[in-house]
């Protein structure tokens, strides 16, 4: 083992900063889940608070370990801005795809009387064979009664039901 392999022991204020930042992120994600697809001012504020906390942690780390500007990775705030734009763009594309799919299915039913024999569309696309993946959440090691989360995945692909 070399010293490079060792995960450094964080400073106590590092642990506090990252711990509280992650709590804010978790809280924002929870709030976003609770309101589902609606946007609310409260959720936006929570994401803003989480972004601020992560940015503070990031600035603190960058101050200690500066990197040349040409190697600089995107900041948390820059990534959030990009993600928002991408999300908006993805939503538009998804809506366009849904519309296209709806039209295609209508045409298929009109042309093929036995359209039910074709692969059927589902919210994620065309139906494919799937299998169950068990996520076993261990509270102890080993755990005789782990929390089990069953998810489906397409054969050949890993899939988690995103419609939680």
């Amino acid at each position, binding site marked *: *083992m070399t*010293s490079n*392999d*060792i*995960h*450094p*022991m*964080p400073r106590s204020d590092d*642990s506090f900063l990252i*711990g509280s930042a*992650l*709590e804010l*992120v*978790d809280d924002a*994600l*929870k709030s976003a*889940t609770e309101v589902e697809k609606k946007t609310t001012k409260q959720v936006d504020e929570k994401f803003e608070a989480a972004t601020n906390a992560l940015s503070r942690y990031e600035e603190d780390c960058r101050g200690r370990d500066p990197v040349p500007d040409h190697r600089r990775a995107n900041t948390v705030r820059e990534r959030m801005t990009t993600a928002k734009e991408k999300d908006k763009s993805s939503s538009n594309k998804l809506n366009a795809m849904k519309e296209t799919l709806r039209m295609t299915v209508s045409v298929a039913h009109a042309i093929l009387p036995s359209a039910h024999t074709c692969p059927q569309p589902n919210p*994620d*696309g065309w139906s494919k064979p799937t*299998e*169950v*993946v*068990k*996520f*076993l*959440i*261990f509270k*102890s*090691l*080993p755990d005789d009664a*782990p*929390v089990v*989360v069953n998810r489906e*995945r*397409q054969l*050949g*692909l*890993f*899939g*988690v*039901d*995103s419609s*939680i």
Partner: protein
Amino acid sequence: MLSESSKTAEVLWNFSRFKDEKRITLKQNPHFYKCLPRSKEAYRNDFRGDPVERFLDTPKDARTSEIYVLTDRPGQVYLEYGQNARAFGNVWLPEHAIIFKGSCLTSSNLPFLT
């Protein structure tokens, strides 16, 4: 449905949206393993497990694929050895070993679950 290129981030996103005991937060720092022993005796001095970041080709039993999830508990365990020190998010004591959950290491001779 996740794609072939899906990684841990997407799985974390899904778990963060659960309710009750199935919900896993970022602060809990979950690690995912393709295989963990189900008996205490299997955890010995030479035991080591590395988490996965991709979820294709998980080992299968007769009926299902299984992925094991370990999380941190509140607070951290700090361990000093020689000139070095490490922080761990959880520790377990099965019969014949002490198992620490830390960060991913590229190489290590220590019998730590990382």
